[in-house]
């Protein structure tokens, strides 16, 4: 893909695990690319297909949804719900013709700062290979 392309990623992080994980990555000074815009949600189960599609509609190149590991959800089953919603969104993306790889679901606990930075690095690499979001009519920075 064109050199110098920096993907823009919207990350929905759950308050109890993934957001704390991102925080830990920060305080532990783990380096990760700055392509990410984090939106904190109380639970990954709160992330509806509309949030994700809206992000793509507004020009995001990738969307990450991150929550607690299975069985660790602060609200017991929120991450199961998240899984269902991501599955539904993937089906919609399939019909729309958006690559499924642009949407990632990850379980990151509050102690996994290193993992958070690794996931971010991997995702940015992947998106750099895939190139920009085909929908670039309305770019919000």
């Amino acid at each position, binding site marked *: 893909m064109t050199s110098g392309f920096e993907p823009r990623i919207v990350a929905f992080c759950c308050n109890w695990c993934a957001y704390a994980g991102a925080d830990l990555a920060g305080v532990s000074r783990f380096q990760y690319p700055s392509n990410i815009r984090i939106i904190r949600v109380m639970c990954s189960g709160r992330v*509806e*297909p*509309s*949030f994700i*599609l*809206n992000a*793509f*509609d507004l020009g995001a190149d990738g969307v990450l949804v991150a929550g607690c590991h299975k069985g660790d959800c602060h609200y017991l089953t929120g991450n199961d719900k998240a899984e269902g919603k991501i599955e*539904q969104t993937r*089906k*919609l993306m*399939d*019909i*729309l*013709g958006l690559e499924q790889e642009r949407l990632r679901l990850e379980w990151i606990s509050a102690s996994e700062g290193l993992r958070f930075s690794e996931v971010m690095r991997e995702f940015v690499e992947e998106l750099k290979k895939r190139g920009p979001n*085909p*929908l*670039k*009519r309305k770019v919000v920075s």
Partner: protein
Amino acid sequence: MSNRSSIDGIIERSRAYNCVQCAKCSSVCPLSGVDESFSPRLIAEKILLGFDEILYEKGLWTCLTCGACDDKCPSDVDYRGFIRELRGKSRQREEVWKCAHGGVLQSLMRMMSDSALKQDRVGWITGDMKVADKGEILFFVGCLPYFDIIFEDFGVKSTDIAGSAVKIFNHLGVTPVVMQDERCCGHDLLWSGDTENFMRLAKNNLKQIKKTGAVKVVTSCPECYRTLKLDYAEYFGEQDFEVLHFSEYLSDSINRGELVFNEACRLNGRVTYQDPCRLGRHLGVYEQPRDVLGSIPGACLGELELNRDRAVCCGSSCWINCGQSSKEIQKRKLEEAKSIADLLVTACPKCQIHLKCAMGDLEGMDMDVVDLTVLAARALGYLV
């Protein structure tokens, strides 16, 4: 243009200045019947008197634009047009308005307006269906493949409607054109005031329809029907193709003697028909769906008390307004339908979704809601 002068333009185009505040609109409004705080008359009065804060109020977005008021208005006010344009105004002022389902359908529609998108939307076509890329008759599917995924939980399979339509076409010896990269018709965006994206969707569709060489566009969705027939003509001039609803196409084929339902697939039951507002009041198609139902062997048609031009909307439109009032309208409709029939037939995929959704909230309500197209395919012996 100042805000007020553009509102004056809306008042003029919709003839709202004729309003004599007789409140006949409020008396027939299905929404006012379940929600006292909603009054079409009051919205008109406020706009006419210059209380523009109405643009920031909920009423503008809860209106079903079903047109029940238009039919009764003695002053010939185009109330649905009035609301439609005011919504456009309300959006310009970046008013926060919320769509049902988190706005996912509007997001999808806006994304579809991007010409760079390459959809993969014809997965519902199975091996036993014959479709073409070019031809005289085009079947406009609408957003059915998306509904299938979003409304999976209600047990609604909207693409069955499209599948049934194609099977009936094939039964009649017609191979319909189905566009691989068809876009949303833009109905919902237009009625939620997003004219810009509506235009983009429409341009894309018109370009594609021209390429197929179709002279007849048939659709099973009344909203697509209205948009393709009236709104595309309004925004882009008269088109050189004819637009038909599938019920009209069916009724024509029955009248010409081409389509004969299978006596072996008798229905044996009481059915009732829900008039979709876009098909009925907006376009005056009342009799064709009833003719189709009448010629299905064993279907005994009973009418809801309010039918044809007096029919009550299914309670929600354009994926904007859903709430307690919608549910109440749906509940009343389902209860009435259940008292007179075993099967509720509708000619709109969205009515079907809304009524099925409401059914999930009502205990002991297990009525079957079927689309007319699917019912017709079953009466021909197809397993749908």
